[in-house]
């Protein structure tokens, strides 16, 4: 650990000896060094549910409830081993994101800036390109229109504005996010179990479970065509958290007070901006040479592993397996869904699958759309908060003059900016409908996922003290995962000339 001598006390020149204080810091990159501070005690795993819950809430979305069931209907459950690979990579990513955020209290964006500022600005720009589009809300609103007849533009616009108002008036935004998403995820998980119990069967479950590990079945030849390969790549990106959600996880970890994040103030709603504490110029590091500090660090690692494996990996896999069971049942009962998909009627897939579910059990026609509507709304809640949080974080620390504003004010600017833009696009934008928006999101999401895997490998190996860096196997998984995403994406683009991944 590097030590910097810094004089404190007034010192009047020649006649008085200045009192020298040593402030120990950890230097990483060219940005301000991180002062050494104490790591707090870790929680016992069961008592504090971590921010993985938010990742689950976001991660269990259109990939699991729509994109992958669509692939299963066409190619059978054996294709799901690809999903398992995707979620395993995401679990490793989650653990490594947590490593950096807990060790320093900084976001991964700050970590990327320590490597090279243009890298961070690249993520800043991609976030705007990817997340200004209200794809999730419009998808959910479409499902709501199927149920109720309410025009999707109207319900989506109202939904966006409601989200903005909620995040403006609360004191601590993270607390509201946690409560809302906790309810929605709990209902989704219990609801999936109940629906699966009523509709599914043991043989469908067995096929779904077996298909998840059938690596030997490879990729069906039909999936390597211009029609389907881009959709497989897109679905791979949507397995678990997609796009920049994992990067924002570092911000939620910090706000939750995990590890060194406890030394950074929480993000407040705009109406409470005046109460905001002073934001430090950089994160902090703990003394990795101190045995007691390393004991606490191991405890934090254990907590996040519990969070990642049980909550994130476990719940994601359980819900998707149940939806696979439902999809298989639906396809068997109603072959029209498969026919519609094979004929390329992607826009009709949503209705066809809903009808297939309905015919399967007589009661499920609206259920599918209810789930999609819930998924769309909850995804928007998390994504808009995350986008505003990430952009305001990067703006505050790196845009000249931004520190004149409080973090809460910057957060509000980005939040309402993306909401207003979303309302305009929904009502006056391209008339391609919600599927087209999701297509664009899928392409850029895949690109940024490849980029952040590689960035994360560099950040954790260069910015952290040796003792807490990831081992070579973990680094290898990150690098291979990143290259895999990028290769699949550009192969799709160059071989088939297709960028529509939705």
């Amino acid at each position, binding site marked *: 650990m590097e030590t910097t001598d810094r004089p404190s006390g007034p010192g009047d020149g020649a006649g008085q000896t200045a009192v020298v204080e040593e402030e120990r810091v950890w230097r990483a990159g060219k940005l301000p060094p991180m002062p050494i501070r104490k790591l707090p005690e870790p929680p016992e795993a069961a008592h504090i549910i971590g921010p993985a819950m938010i990742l689950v809430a976001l991660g269990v979305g259109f990939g699991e409830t729509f994109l992958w069931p669509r692939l299963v209907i066409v190619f059978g459950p054996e294709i799901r081993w690809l999903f398992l690979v995707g979620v395993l990579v995401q679990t490793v990513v989650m653990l490594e994101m947590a490593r950096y955020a807990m060790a320093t209290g900084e976001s991964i964006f700050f970590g990327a800036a320590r490597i090279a500022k243009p890298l961070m600005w690249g993520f800043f720009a991609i976030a705007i390109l990817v997340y200004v589009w209200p794809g999730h809300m419009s998808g959910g609103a479409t499902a709501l229109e199927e149920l109720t007849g309410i025009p999707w533009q109207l319900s989506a616009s109202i939904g966006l504005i409601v989200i903005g108002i909620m995040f403006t008036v609360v004191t601590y935004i993270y607390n509201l996010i946690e409560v809302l998403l906790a309810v929605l995820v709990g209902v989704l998980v219990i609801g999936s*179990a109940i629906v699966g119990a009523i509709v599914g069967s043991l043989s469908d*479950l067995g096929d779904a479970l077996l298909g998840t590990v059938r690596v030997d079945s490879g990729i069906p030849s039909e999936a390597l065509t211009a029609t389907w390969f881009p959709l497989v790549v897109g679905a791979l990106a949507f397995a678990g958290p997609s796009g920049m959600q994992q990067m924002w996880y570092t911000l939620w970890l910090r706000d939750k007070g995990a590890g060194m994040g406890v*030394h950074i103030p929480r993000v407040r709603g705009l109406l409470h901006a005046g109460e905001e504490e002073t934001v430090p110029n950089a994160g902090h590091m703990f003394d990795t040479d101190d045995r007691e500090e390393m004991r606490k660090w191991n405890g934090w690692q254990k907590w996040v592993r519990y969070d990642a494996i049980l909550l994130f990996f476990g719940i994601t896999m*359980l819900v998707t397996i149940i939806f696979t069971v439902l999809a298989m049942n639906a396809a068997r009962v109603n072959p029209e869904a498969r026919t519609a998909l094979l004929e390329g009627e992607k826009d009709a897939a949503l209705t066809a699958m809903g009808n297939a579910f309905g015919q399967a059990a007589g009661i499920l026609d609206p259920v599918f759309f209810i789930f999609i509507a819930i998924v769309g709304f909850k995804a928007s809640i998390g994504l808009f908060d995350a986008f505003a949080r990430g952009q305001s974080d990067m703006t505050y620390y790196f845009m000249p003059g931004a520190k004149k504003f409080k973090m809460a004010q910057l957060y509000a600017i980005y939040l309402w900016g993306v909401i207003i833009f979303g309302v305009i696009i929904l009502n006056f934008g391209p008339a391609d409908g919600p599927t087209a928006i999701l297509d664009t999101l899928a392409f850029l999401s895949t690109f940024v996922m490849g980029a952040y895997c590689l960035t994360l490998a560099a950040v954790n190996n260069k910015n952290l003290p040796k003792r807490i860096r990831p081992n070579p196997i973990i680094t290898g998984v990150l690098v291979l995962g990143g290259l895999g995403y990028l290769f699949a994406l550009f192969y799709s683009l160059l071989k088939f000339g297709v960028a529509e991944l939705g």
Partner: protein
Amino acid sequence: MSAVPAQASASSEWEGLDRRQVVELVLPGAAIGLLGGTIAGGLAAAGGLSPALAIFSIITLGLPLAAVGAYYDVLLAKGRVPLGPLTPMALVWLVGFPVCRIFHAVALALFDSSDVVVPNGWLDFVVYNILLSIPFSIGFWWLHENFAPRWWMRLEDHNPVAYRFMASLINSVERRQGGSPDARLKGLAGMQERRLRRREERRQRRGGH
């Protein structure tokens, strides 16, 4: 003086509760169980089945699930299962969920006058529902861990078991705060701050007594 084992202490605490206190304690588990039944009934209603069938579905699945959920809270209160871990809860539902589903399936068949209760056979049905008890118990645990402590915080002034639950949760926070004097812990410590503030407000309302 010998120390009273924790479980014996919890059991005697339970024995001293009145009916209202017992009902308060089992409410979280019962409510979550009932939610499961409501989902089934809601689906039936949304799917165009008769309101009678929807309500019947809520009763025949929701009430048994509520009973099992309440039973879990009784085990917690008596100290038979520890606060927090998923495994004991999963074991309760491993048995409870299939039993509730069997009751639900039989009741629906009787209501419908159907000859076939389970299309794929009983063994298939039971094994399948045992497996699905896992996601159900995870969803139950999720909601219980997130919301039961907020309920207990409201009860602890007049319910010794709720007080014990909160003390157990808060003690782990105090241990962490003691080890890090310059750290400020969010999340559960925020709950502790609110709890202490409410206690102070109540004391002031009573005139400082």
